[in-house]
Every structure is written in structure tokens, then in C-alpha cells.
């Protein structure tokens, strides 16, 4: 079979040629790149990538096939996959299918042979933008129209596409040694399986709630804490979730990861903004200001929280404090690459969040300790309650 021509077109007109290796249809969305060198399947099945096209900067993707244990949700959320050298082999130990074959079966368009480094450099300089992956048969004019029709990422509510229809309750998988199980109500804006598994492994009962649930629905089963999940889209577009969270802050401990971090921050009156090309990868250094340790983190976000005085970056490695509508917040984590806010805690009410992904999947496990910290705090609060 001769290779099927395909191309990537960006909204600014930049075009990159390649061959189609997935579903044979156009896909349009915001184009982002990730520098993670492994974990491609975890990446595409991460609901946070809903509404995005993923370009992998690592050239060979698909080396160990598609595996049953590498899913971060029940399906692929990325709208298409852009690669330099797709590998399609089913014979790797533990593989259930070849990578391209699997993407095709999932109905996901994919393109290979693209000069992804040139594409990444373009996005780095020009910022993330809309674009698409198109079969070679689609005329460029038509492709451009499809891109124009796609709404911009800023202001988009994509959580509704990935949230469960009704609440799911999951029992712990690990027993806490010295305390009773804690009950966590998760606002599921597209939670990754690894987050849920990390909480369950530490003895938590996890309820996954549709993100439209109000405060009453979230607290109906008397949870010990609210957990705000990761997820796709612009936190500013999720006013209803922010309002729900706001109603619960101070009443129950609130924790969050990624989008959840942004939602809690907005709920206490802090602002979020869009990063030029986001953080997507598995090698960003983040400093835990409570211990002074640097950890290598898994990152996947396009928006970030503004620091004290509305600053985008923070100059010193200090646990600076700033006022929220619920009292003081203290910086707990800072990104050493671009000095943006990576985590904070509320001092006057119980709440703590991080922007990055302590659950890894894919990426390093350095920050797993955060789940211990979070669950310990929740358990301690439950006893005092």
C-alpha cells in the first residue's frame, strides 16, 4: 500500500507535510507539543488533552505498542497525533496492538514523517494556536476554513465533554495502616486514572462526580474532602464549577491538581491566564518550598495562576503569601524553568493544590509524596472534625 499523503496546517498558514497513519479524516483543534520521551498512550488518553492535537517532540512514537495498562481514561481524548516517525508493531512484550493500528481503531487521525522539531520551534516562537491534521486530498482552502470554524481555546468549556454522566464510587485498593478510610468527593472534570489510583491506594474511597453537581450533591455522602480533578479547557469558562467550589471552601478541605488547582484558585478570587505554549512534558523542575527539594515533574497545562500582585512569575524561591477572598495563600511550589506558580495552600481554610501532575502517568514519580501529604491532611482533618 502506498503511503497516504497528509499534512498539518496551522492557523497562521504554516504547513508541514507527512503521511497519514491513523483514521482517514481531518481533525482540527489547538495544536500543542509535548516533550515527554515515553508514555505516548497515557498522553493521548489523558482527558486534559480533549480538544487538542498533540505533536510529540520525541521522534519515534509507538515503540512498545498499545498496552492495556497504559490508559489514563477509557478512550483517546487527543483529537489527532502528530509524529516524526510512528512505529506500528504489535509484537512488543505486553502489547495488545500496534500503535497506529490501535489509533486507527479508536478513530483517531495521525500523521507521521512530519518535521516535528520545526513544528515545535514554530509553536514555541509563535505560541500555541489552532490547526489541523488533514488527508492530502483535502484542499488547503477547505482545511483553512475548518480551522477558522474551530473556536479558540481561551474561553472554552471542554470539561462537559469528559465528565461522567453520573457519580461513580470507587473503593480503596490499599488499606491505611493506622486510620479509617477517608472519603473524597472528586469533581470529575476529566480525571486521570493515575490520580484516582493513587488516592485509592492510600485508603481513600473516591466518588467521581459529574462536574455539574452542585455543593449539595457533592457533599451528600458526607465526604472528608473535595478533590478537584485535572481536565481540559479554560478554567475561566467553568464559572459554574468555580461557584460550587466557592460554596464549599472553608467547609471542607479542598484539594486540586492541574485544572483543579486553577479552579480552586479562581474560587478564592485569584486569576488565571493562558501560557504562550503551555507546559507539556516530563522534565520540568519544580521546587517544593516547604522542603527545599527539587522534583522532576510531569506537566500538562496551557493556563496558569497569577502570583502576588498579578505577577506571572515569581522572583525568589520563597513561600510568598498573598491575600485571597478566603484569607492568605502561601506559595508551596514553583516552576524553576519559567518561575510560574506550581502549587499553593490556603492558610486560613484547609485547601492545597498543585498545577503539575504528582500522579505522573506519564513521567517521573518524584512528586508522589503529595498524595501522602494530601491524604494525611484529609485524614487529620476528619479526626478533628
Amino acid at each position, binding site marked *: 500500500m502506498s503511503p497516504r499523503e497528509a499534512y498539518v496546517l496551522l492557523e497562521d498558514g504554516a504547513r508541514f507535510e507527512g503521511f497519514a497513519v491513523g483514521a482517514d479524516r481531518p481533525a482540527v483543534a489547538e495544536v500543542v507539543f509535548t516533550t515527554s520521551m515515553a508514555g505516548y498512550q497515557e498522553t493521548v488518553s489523558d482527558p486534559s488533552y480533549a480538544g487538542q492535537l498533540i505533536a510529540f517532540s520525541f*521522534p519515534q512514537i509507538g515503540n512498545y505498542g498499545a498496552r492495556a495498562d497504559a490508559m489514563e481514561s477509557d478512550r483517546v481524548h487527543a483529537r489527532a497525533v502528530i509524529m*516524526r516517525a510512528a512505529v506500528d508493531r504489535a509484537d512488543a512484550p505486553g502489547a495488545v496492538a500496534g500503535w497506529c493500528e490501535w489509533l486507527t481503531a479508536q478513530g483517531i487521525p495521525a500523521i507521521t514523517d512530519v518535521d516535528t522539531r520545526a513544528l515545535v520551534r514554530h509553536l514555541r516562537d509563535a505560541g500555541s494556536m489552532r490547526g489541523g491534521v488533514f488527508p492530502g486530498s483535502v484542499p488547503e482552502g477547505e482545511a483553512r476554513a475548518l480551522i477558522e470554524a474551530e473556536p479558540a481555546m481561551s474561553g472554552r468549556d471542554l470539561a462537559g465533554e469528559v465528565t461522567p454522566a453520573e457519580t461513580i464510587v470507587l473503593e480503596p485498593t490499599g488499606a491505611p495502616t493506622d486510620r479509617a478510610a477517608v472519603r473524597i468527593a472528586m469533581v470529575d472534570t476529566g480525571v486521570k486514572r493515575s490520580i484516582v489510583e493513587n488516592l485509592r491506594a492510600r485508603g481513600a474511597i473516591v466518588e467521581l462526580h459529574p462536574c455539574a453537581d452542585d455543593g449539595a450533591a457533592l457533599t451528600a455522602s458526607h465526604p472528608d474532602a473535595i478533590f478537584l480533578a485535572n481536565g481540559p479547557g479554560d478554567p475561566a469558562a467553568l464559572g459554574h464549577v468555580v461557584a460550587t467550589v466557592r460554596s464549599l471552601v472553608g467547609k471542607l478541605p479542598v484539594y486540586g491538581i492541574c485544572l483543579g488547582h486553577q479552579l480552586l484558585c479562581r474560587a478564592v478570587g485569584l486569576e488565571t491566564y493562558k501560557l504562550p505554549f503551555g507546559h507539556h512534558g516530563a522534565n520540568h523542575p519544580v521546587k517544593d518550598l516547604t522542603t527545599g527539594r*527539587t522534583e522532576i515533574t510531569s506537566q500538562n497545562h496551557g493556563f496558569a495562576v497569577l502570583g502576588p500582585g498579578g505577577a506571572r512569575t515569581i522572583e525568589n524561591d520563597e513561600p510568598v503569601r498573598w491575600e485571597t477572598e478566603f484569607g492568605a495563600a502561601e506559595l508551596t511550589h514553583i516552576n524553576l524553568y519559567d518561575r510560574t506558580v506550581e502549587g499553593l495552600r490556603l492558610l486560613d481554610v484547609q485547601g492545597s493544590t498543585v498545577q503539575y501532575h504528582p500522579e505522573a502517568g506519564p513521567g517521573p514519580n518524584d512528586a508522589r509524596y503529595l498524595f501522602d501529604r494530601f491524604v494525611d491532611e484529609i485524614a487529620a482533618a476528619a479526626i478533628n472534625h
Partner: protein
Amino acid sequence: MPRRDDIHKILLLGSGPIVIGQAAEFDYSGTQACRVLRQEGYEVVLVNSNPATIMTDPEVANTTYIEPLLTGPVTQVIERERPDALLPTLGGQTALNLAKALHEDGTLHKYGVELIGADYEAIDRAEDRERFRDTMAAAGLRVPKSFIATSLQNAYDALPVLGLPFIVRPAFTLGGTGGGVVRSEQDIDRVVGAGLAASPIGQVLIEESVLGWGEFELEVMRDRSDNVVIVCSIENLDPMGVHTGDSVTVAPQQTLPDRLYQQLRDQAIAVIRAVGVETGGSNVQFAVNPHTEEIVVIEMNPRVSRSSALASKATGFPIAKIAARLAVGYTLQEIPNDITQATPASFEPALDYCVVKWPRFAFEKFPGAEDELTTHMKSVGEAMSLGRTFKEAFAKALRSRELDTAPGSPDGEEELLALTARPGAARFDHLLEALRRGVSPALLNQRTSINPWFLEELAELVREPGAATGPIPAAGVRTYKSVDTCAAEFAARTPYYYSSGERPGPDGAPTHEVDRGERPSVIILGSGPNRIGQGIEFDYCCVHAAETVRESGRDAVMVNCNPETVSTDYDTSDRLYFEPLTLEDVIAVCELERPEGVVVQFGGQTPLKLAAGLHEAGIPILGTSIDAIDLAEDRSRFGGLLQSLGYSAPPFATARCAEDALQRAPEVGFPLLVRPSYVLGGRAMEIVYDLAGLEDYLRRVHRGSDPDHPGGSTIYLDRFLEDSIEVDVDALCDGEDVWIAGIMQHVEEAGIHSGDSACVLPPHTLGEEMLERIKEQTIGIARALGVVGLLNVQFAIHGDEQLFVIEANPRASRTVPFVSKAIGLPLAKLACRVMLGEPLATLGLPEDDGEDRSSHVCVKEAVLPFSRFAGADSLLGPEMRSTGEVMGIAEDFPTAFAKAQAAAGARLPQSGTVFITVADGDKPAATGIASALQELDFDVIATRGTAQALRRMGIRATAINKIGEGPDNVVDRIVRGQVDLVINTPTGTRARSDGYEIRAAAVARGIPCITTISGGMAAARAITAARRSEPRVVSLQELHGTAV
């Protein structure tokens, strides 16, 4: 945490001579460390016995000692210099072992020297097998089941638990020396015995076999605040069982799913914490069973290693530089990433390309040696290549190896499959051939245990037309991309490039990332993978060329593919192209760079082979012209030139074929030095003594006409001047004026390759008149050739008076670094300035008025790898076989020679038993040696004939049995450790194999074995000098009056 200000003076130990398992990578790491520590305001004292290193350039450290890396000399250095701290983690295993010894003998404590980087406990926990195993178990990590054995019986006892096969790893040896695999009970005595003998503490680890599992390495960095990052993961294509230095490897790892890789990462971090390496880089090796996902920790090096150098070059993360900063107190976060200049070093590099490392072997130099690859490292160098995909990087690595001849594969399928299953130097060539012939990856996986992913990729590679040989396998155009540590997430400031076949931009042109700028550039071609005859000396010269080009206001552009070197540090040049050194790849760089010229004089044979092709492509060659190179290399042209100058040369002839050679041989006269034209660097060069010997040679070596090598059937015949003294001269010439930099007299007589011979500067026995003639003829040759740059001339002095020109090489010679260190002037830099147009007269060189003002004698000694190649003869000959060199500096020749011997690892005994057996012609001369040694109270034993000759001269020599003459023969005595020094010269004709077993036994026991009379005389004088007093250490800065 900021830098420590409680320490001011830091002692750094180098790794000594280049040997297998410890190569130029430690020059790279040590040089980086010296520079960084000085930038930080520390005073740096360096000890290294290897003159061919950038780190021993007098301006790199504050005080530089070229002294043996032994406790005696280093204690003297500590006594004189009183350093506050010793940094032992950047000089390989040699430095680590030495630091350990200095701790154990109380020296460090006595002088209040603190070990920084890794303390004694951490070193011991990582290096002592038993402690390591216990440490891992305590950290909850799995290691292969194993036992410590200090006797053969221990091994037999462990057998029921371990099963077969099992692995033998001796404690405290370099690159796994003496290790092996026991496949059957019958192997135990041999393999375990060798391991016990190789370990300085007589201890081996015998462990459960994980043969066939995947092998992975992680490069780990840790700082004082316990922050840890993984710089790079490396996956071996060869499964467990082959030393990682001998494996083809790829970075980053390719086949592990993320979840499993993260487990390795977690474990690597747990290992460095458990061992307790406080700061700096370490390397952790794992075996992974891809089916069960079991992980076992194999070993860890608590120091910067060969893999660290590879990881640095593969990622752009300068491990040694950062390790040095961490050792003086900085944290990773406080150190900026050079490449982005915007982000800190506390991150993990993200690659958007693939790196393949290929080992370079030299088995052809060691006939008789087993070429099976085991846990005992045998490669002499390596090439690295970068490509966007594994296939591309692999194909580039194939080109980068620079093999003299492509390995051939057998016709039979079963035979071919057997070769793929057995790890050997050409394993992957056989694998590619099998795939070409249609053998399935699945079958190859069964036979080799190589991960199917690699086999499938290689199967695709052989299906792509021209892929394995052509520069660009994919549909695309050659595009230069940068290595930036971050997969383009941030803008790179450091110009480190590789080429890749990539789709062109919208205008159809390649989208290069190279910012060429406006300044004129000069391209320096590096020396490619290290191999015997093509070593670190040439990299040293290339680095000097780059520095000189930069100082001249031009951009220095380096092209090289050797990851172990200083030249491939992105700091060395203005732009680094990490590319194979083939004509096509180099011309492509030239097309982009449009250089003012290309320097081919400094990188040894590698760039010289490209000179004619570059010239034809219209690319300017700097310095000596192509025609002059040809004039010096073409035997008839050069012969004519010598004749016109009135200089003598040994009779020679060029034969077209074997028959022609036999016919011409008598005209030239025996003995003959004979070699085929198709190989370089003394390969296949032999001395034959009669027609029968020549016939035998032609049968073994000559391969007749070969269409691939036009003129390949040519045979060179030279009269061999027996018993003559060889002399090497290095000189500079600007086309007109000539400056003699150094005259070196060889210690071994002619017939030993100059690279393997010890040499002395200034000459120790030549008269003034002879020196004048040597200078005069060197000047004459330099002018006649029109040399612009460096010239090396080799002479032979036959009898008392006759001077013969052996050859002239208008390029950097192997002795350039040695001469530079001896005379205190940077010869390669001066040559480069001449090549860039400066006349000699303006360089401010000292005038030669015939007076010898040198206060010291310098001896260069070669280091030979025989202990690595069981089965190969340790005899020196016209074919070069040394891997490295050391230098001894002292006020007199015997002391300098003794220092050089000690530095080379063949420390001469000061008392004991000497065994002498020499050829008949050598017997009179041997008497002098024997009598000198007897006066020093040595017991002299000898074979019957030699003993008789000695006794006649009044020496009390005891006769002992030859091999086969009965019990208690010479080999038995050597094996039992009853002999301390062996002097064995081969007999004249074809008896060169007679002493083979004696020499092999001596090499195996690490007993100095001298194979020439002149070497024996020098040894006797050196022992006399050493008995008088311990040689004093002296710094280069004192020597050349530049001490501050």
C-alpha cells in the same frame, strides 16, 4: 547553598594512560573540572601521568604534576602542595582506587585532606561487592543472587544455588578485567581462577546469570541537598552478558513502557541515596526481563564514567562540569544550564533525536586473541552518532566506525546465524547480512535475545535502498538540527549540531538551525573513534587547533564523531558538528560553512584520508599542500627527493604482486620490513629474515588483487636495519624557515613501532655531531617538501655513523603532546598559527644555538593492552599495539625511565629474581644487564644456554628448565610468583613465538617483561637509580619557569 569557602586548594587526580576501559573520556571530564574549579576561584593541583591530555596543559590547572598515579608520588605532591580537598570522582577507576588507597594508608588524614564528591564510605559501599549487595538489599532493591568467592572452592560450593551459567566479576578492576562467564562446571577453574588473579584483593563476585535480559544504564546526578536528576537513559542493544563498553547502545532507552522506565528511574535514585554519593554523577546499571518486567540492579559507579561522557555528548548536559560544581557545594538549581542559559541544571534533558554508540575494536592487532565479547571490556574506542530516528543514527554509526575493511559474512545460513548469536566485534554486521538475506527478526530474536524492536528496525533499515551506507536514508534533505537538552522547548544558545534527513521547508530548502554568522570560519577535522594508532594525541592537537583558530578571530568549527573527547565538547569550538568523518558528510558541512579552509593535519589518518577528496571538491586545505602530502607518502617520489638531497634511505622496492615481491626481495636485501599497501599505521607490517619467511608472510597476509582496493595488491619492501637506533624529530616549518621542536631517541631498537617504543628527550646517547646532522636533514626535508605546519621525520642510526631517513610525515605526530610538555611550548598551536599565515619568525620561538639547556630528561613510555587479550603474544614489533602513553620527568635518564615504567603500570622491582633468556646475538649484551642486576643483589635465573653464557662471564646464574624440559620450568615459576622481572629477547629468525608462553605468563601475573636489550639496559639503570632514592616529583610550571 553557595560554594564552599572553607576549602581553597583542590587536588584532582587524572586517570593516567589510555587503556582499554579508561580512555579519553577522563581527559574530557578532568579538563572540564579543572576549568570550572578555577573559574570558581579555587586553586587546582593536578596529577596525571598522561602527557597527551588537555588537562595536563600547563594553563589548565594551577599546578600540574605529570607523575605516576601511585601513592608514593601523590603523597609527595600532597606533602608539597597541602591541598584542602581531593576530588577523586573525575579520574575514572584509577583516581578512585588511588584516593581509596590514600585514605587507607592514612595520608589523607595525616595532611588533613578531605575527600569531596564521594567520601570513602560511599566509594567502598559501591565498589566492594559484598557491601554493595547488602546496601541494595537494605534499600529494598533486588540484585542478582550472588556469592563472594575468594577461592575456587567457594565457587563450587555456590554452584547448586546459582545454577549455570553464572557470571564472574572480579573486585576492583578496570572495565571488568578478568571477568567472564562460567557455562559449565569445567569452566570453573579457568574462569574463576582468572578472576581471582585479576582482582587486586583476590576477590570475585559470582552471580546468578541474567544473560539475555535487557541491559539499561541511567546517569544520575545528586547534590548536597539531596536533589536527584537522571541525565540520560541508555539501552544496550546487546543483551546482558556483554560489557556495556563493548555493546552497541542507544540513548534514550527505546523499548520500555513509561511505567517500567519510571521504576528504573525510582530505583536509580534509591541506589545513589543508599550508596551515599553526596554530590556529582553516578552510573547505575540494570538488567530488565522484558517479559516478566523483573528489574535487578547490576552495579553502580560512584563517579563520572565512560557512560557519563556518552550521556553528556548525547544530551548536551555537561555532567563533569556540573559534578565539579556540586562537589564544592552548589546545588543543581544554582547552576545554570549552559545550553539554554535561561534554565537551571536541575532538570532532565528531553531529547528529540536518537543517539547510537558503537564500540571500535582492534582484534586484528592481536592475532590469537579471542574476539568473543564478554563482561570483560575489549573495545579500544567508540563512535557516536545522532539521527532523528534509531535507523538513521544506526546507519550513521556504521559509517562512523571507519573500519579498514568491511567484515565479511559466511555463505551458510546456519554459520551466519551462529555468528549473530555469539557476541563478537562484527555481530551486527552479521545480523544486518542475515536480515538482508531474509532471515526473520523473530528467528534472530530467538537466537540472540536482542529485543525484537531493534531487529525490526534493522530489518527496515536493510530494506531501504542504500540506507546502511548512504548519508540520508529517509526521503528528505540533509538538515542540520541542534542538540539543546530540551527538545526545542527553549531557544538553544550553544551551537551543537547533527544532520538528519528531514522534509524541506515550504521553499524546498532544508531548514537548518545553524546560525553561521558573518565571521570567517576554519573547519578542523577530528580523529574519529579512538583505535590503536589513532589515539588521544590527535584529539589533543585538534583541540589546540580550535583554540588557535578562535584566538585568531575566526570561528573554529569542529567535525568529529568521538564522544570520549575534549574536541567534541561544545565549549571547545564555535560550532560543533557531531558527524561521521566521511568525505560526503564532511563536504556537506563545508557547503554550509563555506570555510576559509579545512585543517587535516591534526586528526591523524582519519582526516588525512579525506584530504585529496576535499581538495578535488575545491575545498581549501590549510597548511602543507596535498601535493606535498603525496610527495612524502609516495615511496618512489619521496625516494627521489631524498636522493636529490643527498640523504640516505634504507634500500626499498615496491612490488606489484607476490611473485614480484619474491623476485625483488634479494635486491633489497634481508632482513626485510614488509607490508601491504592497503592498510595504514603499521597494520600487518612484519620483519622477515629470508625468502621462506617472505613466502610465509605473503601466504598469510597478502590477499591478491582486490577490485575494491585499486593498487591493493602492492607490497612494500624495505631493508630492515637491524640493531639501529631510531630517532623521531618533530619540527615546524612555514615553507621557508624550520624550527626543530624536539629530537627523541627511542629506547627500543629499530623494528619496534615508534608508537610502542619508549623514547627519550633529549637523546641520551647521541653526540653533538649526529644531532647536527639530524637537524640539518630535517630542515632539508621540510623545505624540500614545502611543509607549512608540522613535520615529523623518523631516522635510523645504523652502526656508529650511518644516518638513514625512514619516513617523513607532514602532519601532527603522536609525539606532539609529549614534546610540547617536555619543551614547555604548545607545538600544535604554533603549527596552527603558521597554517593560518603567521611566519615562524614572528612566533617568538627560542633560537637554536646548539646548546642544550634542558635541566630535565623526559621519557615517554607506551602502555600495552596485552592483559586484555588472552591468547595474543605480548612481543613488540613493527605493528603498533599500544593504547596509550605516560611520561616520566626527572633530572637524569634512569630516574625518568623508572618513573615512566612505574606510571605505565610495569613498576620495576627493586630486588628479587630476574629471569633472563635471550637470542644468541644478544648474549654479550645481556651479560652487562645481568651483572648490573646481580650487583643490586638480584638472583639471576636463566635458560640453560643463556645461563652458560652468563656464567662464563662470571655471573652466578642458575639454570632452570625450559617449557617441556621437565618440572619446575620457567612458566611454573612465573605463575607461582617466584620471578620479579623477565628479560626475554626473541631469537633472530622465525623463533619469535618461542618465548610466547613466558611472556604470556608474565603479562598475566603483571610482572614487567622486557623484550629488547636496550630496554633491559635502561631498566637496569633505572633500578639502580630507584634504589638510591625515591624520585622527586616536579611540576610542569616549575620545570618551565612559569610557576606563580
